[in-house]
């Protein structure tokens, strides 16, 4: 049943796409750009699933499939010098914020051409030149790091903003509390985006979280709060733009709760005994990609031929990245202790 993951105020289907639409989303190029980003994330992740099954990817991989509209919608409003902090499920955020695709793919392969030179892997993709302060293997670690980036902006008297992505499972970590209180006290330019995908690993949110409307958590800090259908790109753009504008203008932080659903397992290979196939299939009816395709068609911005064309382009891009990664070398063993410090350390073994 789909209603397990939609708050009461979201309707099933495409009806909810009829929210006030930002000017630029009547613009074909803006719209297609967003569509390409959605596609790019989807294709990247599906490609990883296939590669993982073939044993080409070390470690474990958490895919963002089903949640693409959140990262793309939010990041559409960002400048390159804005920051995002991310989670263990970070490829989508990184792509939406503009990470180099080859570097990202090579990183997930553990190659020396990876954006983190193979040191981090899937759970630690980052691109500081694009303001991507890192995916992070510790749940909700990004919240306090985001607060620090916000403090840095305020101290430097810049007008950047920080987006802090975190999950519905992460919301119960103490760091969320400490970060939100501080950002609110100091009116820091931080937007907390809670990706409410209904699960934390194999555990339904209901078992572990005391409130069903997560946005009430923001109220406790005197913060603005917003709830949004996270599968509806246009709505995410709108809602997050308000929050981002407020942050940029010095009005302080907002908590945005974006309802969504994780189509895949917690990690690639997860047997998913904790939920029914029906539930997953039902959720796919609200695939953010389909919803946005519907939107584009409805507004006469694109048709299915166009979709096919874009899909081909994106596929090529991703395949090129795979080629790049596959042809790259692994880092050399003797470099294993590089980058521990900025300078050499004597006396260590």
């Amino acid at each position: 049943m789909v209603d397990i993951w939609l708050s009461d105020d979201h309707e099933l289907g495409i009806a909810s796409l009829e929210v006030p639409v930002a000017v630029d989303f009547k613009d074909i190029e803006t719209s297609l750009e967003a569509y390409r980003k959605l596609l790019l994330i989807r294709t990247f992740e599906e490609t990883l699933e296939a590669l993982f099954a073939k044993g080409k990817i070390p470690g474990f991989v958490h895919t963002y499939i089903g949640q693409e509209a959140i990262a793309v919608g939010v990041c559409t409003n960002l400048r390159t010098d804005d920051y995002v902090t991310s989670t263990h499920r970070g490829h989508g955020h990184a792509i939406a914020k503009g990470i180099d695709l080859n570097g990202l793919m090579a990183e997930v392969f553990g190659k020396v051409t990876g954006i983190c030179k193979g040191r981090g892997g899937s759970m630690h993709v980052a691109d500081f030149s694009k303001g991507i302060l890192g995916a992070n293997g510790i749940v909700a670690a990004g919240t306090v790091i985001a607060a620090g980036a916000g403090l840095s902006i305020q101290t430097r008297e810049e007008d950047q903003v920080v987006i802090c992505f975190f999950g519905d499972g992460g919301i119960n970590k103490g760091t969320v509390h400490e970060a939100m209180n501080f950002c609110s006290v100091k009116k820091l330019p931080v937007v907390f985006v809670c990706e409410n995908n209904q699960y934390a690993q194999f555990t339904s949110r209901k078992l572990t979280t005391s409130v069903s409307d997560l946005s009430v958590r923001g109220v406790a800090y005197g913060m603005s709060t917003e709830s949004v259908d996270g599968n509806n790109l246009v709505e995410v753009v709108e809602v997050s733009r308000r929050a981002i504008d407020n942050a940029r203008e010095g009005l302080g932080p907002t908590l945005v709760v974006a309802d969504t659903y994780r189509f895949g397992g917690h990690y690639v290979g997860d047997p998913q005994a904790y939920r029914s196939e029906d539930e997953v299939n039902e959720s796919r009816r609200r695939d953010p990609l389909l919803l946005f395709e519907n939107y584009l068609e409805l507004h006469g911005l694109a048709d299915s031929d166009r979709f096919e064309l874009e899909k081909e382009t994106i596929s090529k891009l991703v395949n090129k990245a795979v080629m790049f990664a596959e042809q790259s070398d692994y880092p050399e063993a003797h470099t294993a202790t590089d980058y521990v410090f900025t300078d050499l350390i004597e006396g260590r073994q």
Partner: protein
Amino acid sequence: MRSISFGQATVEATAAAMREDDTVVITGEDIGWGGNFGQFKGLLEEFGPKRVLDMPISEALILGSAVGAAVTGLRPIASLSFVEFTMGAMDEIVNQAAKFRYMFGGQVSVPMVVRASDGVLRSSGPQHSESFEAFFSHMPGLKVVAPSNPADAKGLLRSAIDDDDPVVYLENKKITFRRGPVPEEDYRTALGQASIARTGSDVSLITYSVMTQHALEAAQVLLEEHSVDAEVVDLRSLVPLDIDSVLRSVAKTRRAVVCHEAWTFGGFGAEIASQINEHLFGELAAPVLRVGAQSAPIAFSPPLERALVPEASEVVQAVLRTVKP
């Protein structure tokens, strides 16, 4: 004897304790589904959600509530799937669990077990691959257990749950799935008693957890390829530390290599090496060497990971430096 996995062996110990004593409960994230390493499989089904609790992602709460429960009548087993997550609960482990008995003048005991998986497993990356036993063993008031095989895993966990003090039970990821002979019956393996995993006369390999396995492999190679007969001392628990067994072995072989997967620098091996050197001063034929990880976060990329963390070949090399200087 039947062969079962390390993880399964811990399930047996836990189930036995839970059957015997209603106050034993398990708390942790996603343990109802069996745990990342199968180490809780079937327990929810047998004991129900009041004794097998799926907790919020709140590590401080998980450990802190274990302390609160332990001093009010329960014997909680608090599980954090990766040892790195203990860092979000260090106040509760170091400032609370470890100190409660002492700072309240012996009024209470704190019978709890902290379970966590440590060590390297196939590119888990820099936040899911480490070994922190040096932190826990430095802290007075904590016992620290690090089994190397399924049979010990079962017996030591049973003792840890029995124990009236907080015990940090560290299960290395690489060996969690490995199988070995495990008695069917319920039994306990005492904390603080090292086992001589292999007797030998030329050099003592002092080790624990996964490195015991590597040391045994190394011993095989040393014998076959270098005619060196190594003794392997598996500590099993670091606190209490069975230093007598260590000293006895080294007094006999006059050579020691201390091995663990954790970083060498400031690692628990330094404690062992220092004690050997102090107590057997003048009796050693070679310097005590240490084998451990190089000082870097554990990288994701397979060749880097392998370069950082020691296995049997590094042990062999160290022994050769000791026996043929």
